[in-house]
């Protein structure tokens, strides 16, 4: 017999694999995502009680499904009895759906509907992130709290409130109607990308990388790409994540210090992720693209260059121009300035940056003075450059980044 510890880990693994379709199937029957998760959790608790005694069943997924189904059925019967008592009228039997057949319907659709519910705009963005990781990523509340550096009760409360809001609003478990579809899909992509970025770069404190969230997000993105193969932007997002993740090993130095893209050792970039990212980008572009696809195309310019010198800066500058048209933003413009500076000389880049210094949304954005400092250095205007790097250092919340910026300020002084 297996040790209880290994049984628990096996149960965790089964949960991770089965929970999205389990909760999705139960939501379809119960019409209540909160209740569905409760039933699925009940089944999990039963497994935790029984499996250490009986061993893990041969088909643990089916076991969980059956157990949860029975719970759901009990709950529906109970609800019906209560309703009967209250209303003292006969409710026809067809009010209890045929759970057996209902749960075996198209599983893919259930998972997709569950994704759309978890990312419903009626709940806050933080709650969407937490719900998605919990209902579809199989993460526990504690794991989510740890990953996002917030107290566990905060996450628990977000999830409870979100589930209540979804229940009260009577959000239907269905594919969003055509009129809302684009907006709802956008929310889904946004949530997945938020999870990825949280893992990819810490915004505060010393912990530069929490890579597990990147993997969770990429997995969610790949799931979505398989469920919605005709949506260009889903593939665009997958491409963007895989291409960015390909640089993980190269972007942090031995002391944990960040290494800028152009200074990275490209031998350490992950070829498999690059290959997967470029393939996803190709699909996205063939389907029409969009802002995520354009961002992936930008990252792809770096991924395709074997050395930093080979980077196709004019193409990057042009892509930022296109991105600025579909998604006008001073940050995009700032990035275009960097690319233009690389492609056509620092004074051309500085012209664009100087047009941005009065932009109120960039007033506290450390990369504005950082980019300006970089261009000034290249133009030999070191005193101005030093002031910009110092300003950038005072604005960043990331300790590692601050260190790097102060170093640049210092070297501007000494040259």
């Amino acid at each position, binding site marked *: 017999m297996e040790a209880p510890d290994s049984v628990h880990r096996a149960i965790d*693994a089964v949960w991770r694999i089965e929970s999205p379709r389990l909760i999705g199937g139960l939501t379809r029957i119960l019409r209540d995502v909160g209740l569905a998760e409760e039933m699925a959790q009940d089944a999990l608790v039963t497994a935790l009680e029984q499996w250490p005694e009986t061993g893990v069943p041969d088909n643990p997924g089916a076991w969980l499904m059956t157990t949860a189904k029975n719970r759901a059925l009990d709950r529906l019967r109970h609800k019906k009895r209560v309703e009967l008592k209250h209303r003292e009228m006969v409710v026809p039997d067809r009010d209890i759906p045929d759970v057996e057949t209902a749960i075996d319907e198209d599983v893919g659709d259930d998972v997709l509907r569950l994704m759309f519910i978890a990312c419903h705009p009626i709940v806050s963005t933080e709650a969407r992130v937490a719900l998605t990781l919990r209902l579809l990523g199989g993460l526990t509340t504690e794991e989510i709290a740890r990953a996002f550096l917030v107290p566990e009760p905060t996450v628990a409360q977000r999830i409870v409130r979100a589930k209540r809001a979804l229940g009260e609003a009577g959000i239907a478990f269905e594919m969003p109607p055509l009129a809302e579809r684009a907006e709802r899909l956008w929310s889904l992509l946004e949530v997945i990308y938020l999870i990825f970025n949280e893992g990819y770069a810490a915004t505060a404190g010393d912990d530069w990388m929490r890579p597990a969230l990147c993997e969770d997000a990429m997995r969610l993105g790949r799931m979505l790409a398989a469920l919605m193969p005709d949506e260009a932007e889903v593939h665009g997002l997958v491409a963007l994540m895989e291409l960015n993740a390909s640089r993980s090993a190269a972007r942090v130095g031995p002391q944990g210090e960040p290494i800028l893209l152009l200074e990275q050792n490209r031998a350490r970039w992950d070829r498999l992720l690059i290959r997967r990212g470029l393939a996803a980008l190709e699909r996205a572009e063939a389907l029409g693209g969009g802002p995520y696809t354009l961002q992936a195309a930008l990252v792809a310019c770096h991924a395709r260059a074997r050395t930093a010198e080979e980077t196709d800066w004019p193409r990057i500058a042009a892509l930022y121009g296109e991105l600025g048209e579909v998604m006008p933003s001073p940050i995009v413009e700032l990035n275009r300035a960097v690319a233009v500076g690389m492609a056509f000389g620092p004074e051309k880049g500085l012209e664009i940056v100087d047009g941005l210094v009065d932009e109120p949304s960039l007033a506290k954005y450390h990369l504005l003075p950082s980019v300006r400092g970089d261009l000034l250095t290249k133009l030999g205007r070191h005193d101005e450059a030093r002031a910009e790097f110092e300003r950038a250092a005072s604005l960043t919340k990331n300790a590692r980044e601050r260190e790097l910026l102060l170093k640049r300020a210092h070297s501007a002084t000494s040259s």
Partner: protein
Amino acid sequence: MRFIVFVKASKESETGVMPSDELLSEMGKYNEELVKAGVMLDGAGLKPSSQGARIQYAGGKRTIVDGPFPEAKELVAGYWLIQAKSKEEAIEWLKRAPFQDGEVELRPIFEVADFDMSNETRALHDDIAKQLKDRDKA
């Protein structure tokens, strides 16, 4: 976490006997499930070892040995590259593979976090990488 899964060879795979249509279609479905779950990153089947070769190193000496190689069960006939949250999850997925007999071997891949290279080791590593690159250019 990423894992590579080696599918061990058999007498059939080594003699070039193709799997039955049934197994191929089951395998197709299984792969599709892995892809849908966002778990499968890569995978391929390998030709028999009779079409391969071994390069043996002994000091400065290199010896080339052409296949086939004995001990079919010790050879690899294919691989998957998967991403899973834990070794247990990877195992759980593989328990569902449609094999009737044979064996697969699961090995975690080193990730960035696993390397705690000292400065010197890192410098050495980068130096070797650079030399290899320069040699490629020459």
